[in-house]
């Protein structure tokens, strides 16, 4: 069967959206276009999936418009979630505050001034109850952007959903849980890399058995890019991390096709339009080939890369913030033309603060204009076959392969070992910092134009836009709430559950998800759980380097 025939067969089985797939002049559009003289050219939904994971792409289902939200207390964020769902958002995405990301309780002195600032504060199961109150968790999918304490937050999510009558097998969503990029770029780490990888493998293994609709890891290039990498580095480092997670799950004795279909990815959409599109296309092709050839996957679902995209926070300017709406629209369009499965569009005010409700609504409307007005969702991979885009796709792939060879050598034939070595030697961190400095030099010299920041600055002095203010009132409320929870829980039950957890952590053969579920149900705090684990695992300290 030729690839064209394979595509045709898959397309015929796919359900289609109720929409008119034609131009504004009434010209009917094919679901995909390919060369007339080559039946074996690449097609979407056909290995190696360069042109998309599915044969029908957005003709069956538009991407999920998943807007990231979280601030203040759980009740504040719950209100924002309900508003986004009411405005046509189709999935939830939770941002946590810095103390939660580091497993520090809101009443810890280290949390001073940080509670509820960059996301929602979660200390105990009680906060997760408030966060998702009144939302049917079997009906929506939820993404949770958390890494070091990801397993604990997953336990809280499951415990809350089950207390409300949902079945864990019916819960759909994504846990970011990508610890490798924390050491490389985002730097929200707690434990050293190796015990952290054990926690990730525990969640992959547990979800494979218990939560068939859940994505236990979202392998994230977004933060690597935001930290300063190039698109080519984002692609290479993210996929290398993906291979490391695969190898780590294989070491557990899992069969590749039992967990790989649930791995998902998360990429940045920066402003260099065509390079971004080429990056997504190359990512799908590389993933498919490596899964098949190196890890011997046989299920197509193990080879089909699915990913979430977020527009680039670093591409936004504090100057003339309204211009950010335009940047975000261009970036979002790159994500869509690149075939993303879900998308977050940044709000115009995010170089200044967390977004206001109005700014977040405009960002969502930007996606809706692309989806429902522009017509770009009618045809899969509309840029496929462009000499330029195909050539750029090949080049991105070539650069990524060079990095894989380096890491594979570093790990003596193991990508997992190569990535861990690269982190321990600071190789990734230096590569990213070098790229960030090169970019900054280009901005400073004016070789790279940044509208409103280093050029076209007329209008910068106009009245500032309204931004969201988070008062320290939220911090006080959260600290008070935590004190209430601490006072009404059964202290002995908390202590017993923490002791069992510590014992389980000391035995590398035990999966930590069951004892974590027991602990969160006693309303043990995130900080208590993380501290107990740190006594077994140790704490990671990064060697400062410029």
């Amino acid at each position, binding site marked *: 069967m030729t690839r064209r025939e394979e595509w045709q067969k898959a397309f015929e089985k796919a359900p289609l959206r109720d929409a008119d797939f034609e131009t504004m002049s009434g010209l009917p559009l094919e679901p995909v276009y390919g060369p007339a003289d080559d039946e074996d050219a690449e097609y979407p939904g056909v290995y190696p999936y360069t042109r998309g994971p599915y044969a029908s792409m957005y003709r069956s289902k538009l991407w999920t418009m998943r807007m990231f939200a979280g601030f203040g207390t759980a009740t504040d964020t719950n209100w924002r979630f309900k508003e986004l769902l009411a405005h046509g958002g189709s999935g939830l995405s939770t941002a946590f505050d*810095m103390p939660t990301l580091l497993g520090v309780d809101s009443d810890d002195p280290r949390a001073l001034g940080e509670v509820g600032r960059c996301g929602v504060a979660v200390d105990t199961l009680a906060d997760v109850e408030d966060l998702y109150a009144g939302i049917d968790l079997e009906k929506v999918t939820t993404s949770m952007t958390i890494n070091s304490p990801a397993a604990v937050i997953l336990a809280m999510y499951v415990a809350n959903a089950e207390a409300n009558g949902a079945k864990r097998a019916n819960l759909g969503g994504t846990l970011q849980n990508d610890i490798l990029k924390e050491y490389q770029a985002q730097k929200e780490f707690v434990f050293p890399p190796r015990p952290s990888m054990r926690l990730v493998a525990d969640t992959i293994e547990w979800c494979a058995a218990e939560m068939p609709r859940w994505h236990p890891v979202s392998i994230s290039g977004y933060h690597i890019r935001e930290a300063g990498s190039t698109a080519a580095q984002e692609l290479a480092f993210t996929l290398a991390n993906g291979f490391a997670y695969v190898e780590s799950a294989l070491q557990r004795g899992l069969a590749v096709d039992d967990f790989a279909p649930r791995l998902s990815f998360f990429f940045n959409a920066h402003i260099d339009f065509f390079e971004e599109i080429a990056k997504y296309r190359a990512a799908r092709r590389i993933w498919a080939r490596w899964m098949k050839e190196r890890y011997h996957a046989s299920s197509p679902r193990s080879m089909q890369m699915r990913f979430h995209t977020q527009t680039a926070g670093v591409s936004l300017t504090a100057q003339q913030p309204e211009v950010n709406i335009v940047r975000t629209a261009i970036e979002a369009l790159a994500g869509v033309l690149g075939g993303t499965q879900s998308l977050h569009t940044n709000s115009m005010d995010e*170089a200044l603060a967390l977004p206001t409700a109005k700014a977040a609504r405009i960002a969502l409307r930007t996606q809706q204009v692309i989806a429902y007005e522009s017509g770009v969702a009618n045809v899969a991979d509309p840029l496929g076959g462009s000499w330029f885009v195909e050539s750029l796709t090949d080049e991105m792939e070539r650069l990524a392969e060079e990095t894989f060879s380096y890491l594979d050598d570093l790990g003596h034939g193991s990508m997992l070992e190569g990535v861990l070595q690269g982190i321990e030697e600071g190789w990734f961190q230096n590569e990213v910092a070098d790229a960030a400095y090169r970019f900054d030099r280009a901005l*400073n010299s004016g070789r790279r134009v940044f509208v409103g920041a280093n050029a076209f600055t007329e209008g910068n002095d106009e009245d500032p836009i309204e931004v969201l203010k988070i008062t320290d009132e939220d911090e006080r409320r959260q600290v008070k709430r935590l004190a209430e929870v601490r006072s009404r829980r059964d202290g002995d039950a908390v202590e017993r559950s923490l002791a069992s957890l510590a014992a389980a952590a000391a035995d590398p053969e035990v999966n930590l998800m069951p004892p974590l579920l027991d602990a969160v149900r006693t309303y043990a705090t995130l900080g208590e759980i993380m501290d107990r684990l740190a006594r077994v695992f140790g704490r990671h300290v990064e060697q400062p380097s*410029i």
Partner: protein
Amino acid sequence: MADRVLVAKLGLDGHDRGIKVVARTLRDAGYEVIYTGLFQTPESTVTAAIQEDVDAIGLSMLSGAHLALVPAVMEEQRRAGVSIPVIVGGIIPEDDIPALTKAGVSAVLGPGASAEEVIGAVRGAIDRARREAGGSAPEGEPGGSAPQGEPA
């Protein structure tokens, strides 16, 4: 001898792109730069600044905790009997700048500040601090405001 600048990432935020770029910018401009790494507290920052005998402190703040943590650095300096000029960079809302200035911060740099602005702010803060310390010490001795460092 070159002026010495300590750059610190205060609080729980790990986003270190900005501070590393600033550190390299200052280093390339001839400063001796000491970077203390992530997750610093007001105490650890002031202790390190005294031990390293620096002429200025640069704080990177992106998480919104600046109104809690930056005045704490100034307070910690008073307690230790030093007054090293402090420059804050990052995501600082316009409305919060007066509070930081009132706390004694020398300069606040927002997103998009150029290398020239960063270097200018540091140089200006160090010069002003020397003038205020009364010493006309042009260089070398940083005005005598840094006493014999007390190891923590």
